[in-house]
């Protein structure tokens, strides 16, 4: 019991004195996961919208693949990204294994299906006749798609949050492709794993609190979005 109590005390000390190492790790986490989420937004929203609006053979298969992708195990992603980026791998020439760039790549692969799946569901959940109403207002196809995406902006924001939440708390892929190198590729989750294994509980707890706070804020925004209603 004393261990936990002392750990928490020291953790708050680290947080309030803004320990440079903890700060560095947090900033890198936000940077890596933020960039990965941003990339996943471009790919996820555009393809998700396309699949939601288009009719083509094999659409069901594509939708089920996207939904499966929403639950990609990070370690599997980490494994394949590592293989691809390995010195002799297909993308080995990039030389980015064990760099933040590799972590961004892996996290983007994890977040993209999440954003895509939520986009798909959000666009499909809009009233059936809304598309016809937009066209009846004289919209071109491109204008129609843009207005639909704007109409789905709240659930899409939920997609952003879910994607970001998924990758900031992910540990497997980051440790595999980033290598947890001190001051270079060490992020909140990988650092927590390491400090815990070393018995440095106070640092681990401090990092854990930051993760929890991030998770809390993400959920706060999500809840707020979900409480809103669509107009009639």
């Amino acid at each position: 019991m004393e261990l936990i109590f002392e750990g928490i005390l020291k953790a708050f000390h680290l947080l309030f004195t803004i320990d440079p190492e903890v700060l560095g790790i947090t900033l890198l986490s936000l940077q890596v996961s933020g960039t990965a989420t941003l990339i996943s937004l471009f790919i996820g929203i555009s393809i998700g919208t396309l699949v939601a609006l288009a009719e083509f053979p094999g659409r069901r298969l594509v939708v089920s693949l996207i939904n499966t992708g929403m639950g990609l195990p990070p370690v599997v992603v980490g494994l394949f990204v590592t293989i691809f980026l390995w010195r002799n791998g297909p993308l080995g020439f990039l030389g980015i294994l064990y760099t933040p760039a590799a972590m961004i790549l892996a996290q983007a692969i994890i977040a993209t299906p999440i954003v895509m799946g939520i986009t798909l569901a959000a666009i499909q959940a809009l009233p059936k006749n809304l598309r016809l109403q937009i066209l009846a207002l004289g919209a071109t196809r491109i204008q129609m798609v843009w207005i639909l995406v704007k109409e789905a902006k709240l659930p899409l924001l939920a997609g952003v949050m879910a994607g970001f939440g998924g990758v900031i708390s992910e540990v497997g892929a980051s440790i595999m492709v980033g290598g947890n190198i001190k001051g270079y590729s060490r992020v909140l989750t990988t650092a927590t794993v390491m400090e815990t294994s070393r018995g440095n509980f106070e640092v681990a707890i401090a990092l854990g609190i930051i993760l929890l706070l991030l998770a809390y804020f993400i959920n706060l925004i999500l809840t707020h979005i979900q409480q809103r209603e669509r107009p009639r």
Partner: protein
Amino acid sequence: MNSPGPILEAKDLQVTKGGALVLDVPAMAVEEGEILSLIGPNGAGKTTLLQTLARLIKISRGEIFFRGKKVSSNHSEFIYRRKVAMVFQDPLLFDTTVFENVASGLKIRGINKQEIQRMVAENLERFGIAHLLHRSARKISGGEAQRVALARAFAPQPEVLFLDEPFASLDPPTRESILENLESVLRQTKTTTLLATHDRMEALRLSDRIAVMNTGRMLQVGPPGEVMNQPRDEFVASFVGVETILTGRVSKKDKGSFSASIMGHEIEAVGEVALGETVVFCIRPENVTLSPSSPKGATSARNVFTGKIEKVIPMGLFYKVQLQCGFPLVAYVTGHSLEDLELREGKEVVASFKATSIHIVRKK
């Protein structure tokens, strides 16, 4: 600019959905400035016809002409759509302010800001919702939302307006007030309008012409009086409020008038028919008079039958009385006559109706 001839015309129009023919209109035309109502039960094809004419759904066969020019079916359909507007049963407002909603059609057309301000203000005023300008579309009532939808449709000054049961999900007082509002706006702007509705009173009130639809076909098109009083067949008759529809054979023929035998009873009517021909009699309930006993002396009603009251159904302002006179007959009476005549189930009364009030459908 306004060429003579119909503003909107369809030829040989067919739409299939999942292999089934859901719309089959060989020809139709809408005159500039007229209000044409499409009435019919659910699934009659009213919505499909409106959406087809607005070029929102795929046509399987046929063509649409706008002011005599064929509406192309390629990717420039939006040019045609910018000349028309449509209001659906649900307001389908965008998740933004009332102003942005009404402005949306104008913004899509790339109209400049001052013009948008002016046109939005004008149309909000027109539908009595100027005070909602900055409100969120999420925080207004159902009736207000439908007014916003109407203002949004009118803002780009459409040449043809399609209304797809826009009042169907509103409560009666709200519907009445919006209907009145719309009626005056339509009279003022003289916008050519196609209104789909399953409420024949709504159609009667607004329309220059009524089209009765069923199973994707247009059964009859004409001025309201004509469709109401001279339905072409039994389906149209029942849909426009004819309660008594009887089929019989012409048994006697006189000059201008004739008698037909219906379930063993001779009913007299007026018209040119052949002896032995099968005819359908359409008798509107408001044309049937009930009295306690046979009318004495001369009466212009040549059809007088004694019948037993089977059911009395309150209909709001009047009562519907179902009679069995050897054949079924329905009459409408006021609450006053109901009390005067002491009409109740099981009682015998005398029903009369004029030979001239019967509409005859000839079977081919």
